């Protein structure tokens, strides 16, 4: 492990990549928040499907010399639209995602194989490349993430109603179809941003793991999103701050931290249920 970590020039390095650090922090928060709805709407697998098509879009853009983030957004919105229209019911959705996912991944690999550039950049789309993202791109990433955050805040309550209790929401006049469409759009944009930062294969570490961990330790509709956003932030920010001092990529740090948080939350939940079981017995 000698030479993997080197924190001697940390301050100077941090300054150089401050844009990436901010992008990571915001993605961590957005991913944690939207992840709560991903869990409530049972869409973890759909997120994976969207991210593979987003990867195909980004790789296609790389091949034709277009903007990679734009390509990524086009790919993920196309996937979100297909899943949103054809996969209203959970079972249909899973089969559609299962069909789309290998297709998207295969298409992306084809585009990368045809791309004459350096190989190091290529696999960044699959496994993360935030430090390689240039400044203009970073602005776009952060802007997109903030737009998602604002939109999510606006539709939060009806979206939560529709996600948690769809029958009552419908009886109350909540427009479920319209909300679903907006949610898929926001999810598509978030995935496109996440693909740039941690890579298509690892998107779930920020869009699913923090929310899954939060649900383990709380059932409150207020506490779960707050915890999830905090977990996402700690994972993403912690990941990049460690990565800056090392020669390794960002992604494994983010995925490891978010997984560790999940494990701790499971442990806490397990201890709690054992304690309440003991209380019931005694």
């Amino acid at each position: 492990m000698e030479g993997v970590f080197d924190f001697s020039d940390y301050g100077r390095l941090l300054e150089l990549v401050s844009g990436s650090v901010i992008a990571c922090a915001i993605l961590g928060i957005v991913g944690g928040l939207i992840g709560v709805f991903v869990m409530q709407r049972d869409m973890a697998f759909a997120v994976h499907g969207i991210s593979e098509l987003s990867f195909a879009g980004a790789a296609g853009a790389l091949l034709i010399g277009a903007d990679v983030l734009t390509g990524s957004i086009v790919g993920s919105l196309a996937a979100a639209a297909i899943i949103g229209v054809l996969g209203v019911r959970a079972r249909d959705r899973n089969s559609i995602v299962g069909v789309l996912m290998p297709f998207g991944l295969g298409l992306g690999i084809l585009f990368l194989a045809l791309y004459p550039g350096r190989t190091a950049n290529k696999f960044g789309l699959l496994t993360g490349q935030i430090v390689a993202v240039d400044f203009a791109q970073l602005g776009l990433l952060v802007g997109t993430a903030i737009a998602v955050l604002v939109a999510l805040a606006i539709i939060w309550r009806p979206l939560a109603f529709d996600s948690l209790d769809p029958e009552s929401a419908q009886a109350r006049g909540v427009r479920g179809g319209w909300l679903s469409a907006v949610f898929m759009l926001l999810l598509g944009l978030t995935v496109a941003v996440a693909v740039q930062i941690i890579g298509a294969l690892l998107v779930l570490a920020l869009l699913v793991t923090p929310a899954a961990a939060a649900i383990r330790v709380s059932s409150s509709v207020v506490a779960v999103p707050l915890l999830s956003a905090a977990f996402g932030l700690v994972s993403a920010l912690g990941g990049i701050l460690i990565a800056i001092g090392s020669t390794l990529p960002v992604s494994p740090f983010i995925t490891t931290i978010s997984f560790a948080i999940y494990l701790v939350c499971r442990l806490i939940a397990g201890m709690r249920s054992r304690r309440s079981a003991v209380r019931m017995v005694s």
Partner: protein
Amino acid sequence: MDEHEPRGDRHGGVVTPAGSRPAGAAVLSIRGASLRFAAPGHHGPRHGRDLWTDLDLEVAPGELIAILGPNGAGKTTLFRAILGAQPLSAGEIRLLGDPVRRGDRRIGAVPQQRIFPASVPMLGRDLVTLGRTGTRLGLPITRRADRDAVTAAIEAAGATALADRPIGSLSGGEQQRLRLAQAIVDEPALLLADEPLSSLDLGHQRAIVELIDAQRARGTAVLFIAHDVNPILASVDRILYLAPAGHRIGTSAEVLRSAVLSDLYGAHVDVVRVHDRVFVVGGPDDHHHAELTEEE
């Protein structure tokens, strides 16, 4: 095949504030309502299937009307029409004088029960709060007035002890109490309950019926879709019986008769009364024992 009983002048034995209201102050008024669905693969009214035709019903404050009938007779669809989510083919439905529309807060609804899975990240109180604020835009920050209304509704539903427990950890009957609290959180003029007793044990059934009666005493009119009329027979003012061959409205003594139901089903049906319970025997779809399938 329309049967029209004289209506609106008998209100069981339940004393409610509604009893003193002047005639014409109906909470819900359904006039000449018909619903026809286009048959699959066909368009236009000629190939459709009538769910119900020329339905007339005036519901007074505090009145409880049980809606009975076989699966597929359009009971849940009638609720959807009252909620403004299902346009009629003919006729009109008015709530306190206004044509019904989506999202009218003067209607509370207990939808057909779906048990919440254990993992749903929601406390009992959250479910009720969604009923109060869930249609508003913005973040889930509740105002004091909303919190007070939620607390009052939970108390009225006898669910105070359940308010801070995860909804998925509660039994079906406990969840149903909270659903009822959610439906009455805005003090609705009309409460729609779609088979609220299904899959509940006798004790919980009785508790839910008591809660609904308490809400009626405050002037709320109730439409109650029931699979089995017996648990609510004592509270029912009138019955709307929907069947494929027509419908009938009247008191239980008027509607739950062999001749009437045989007519509605187009086949011989026996109505048997044992003590205070009513059983329908020999119907094509024996509704008191039919399976709990969603009608659509």
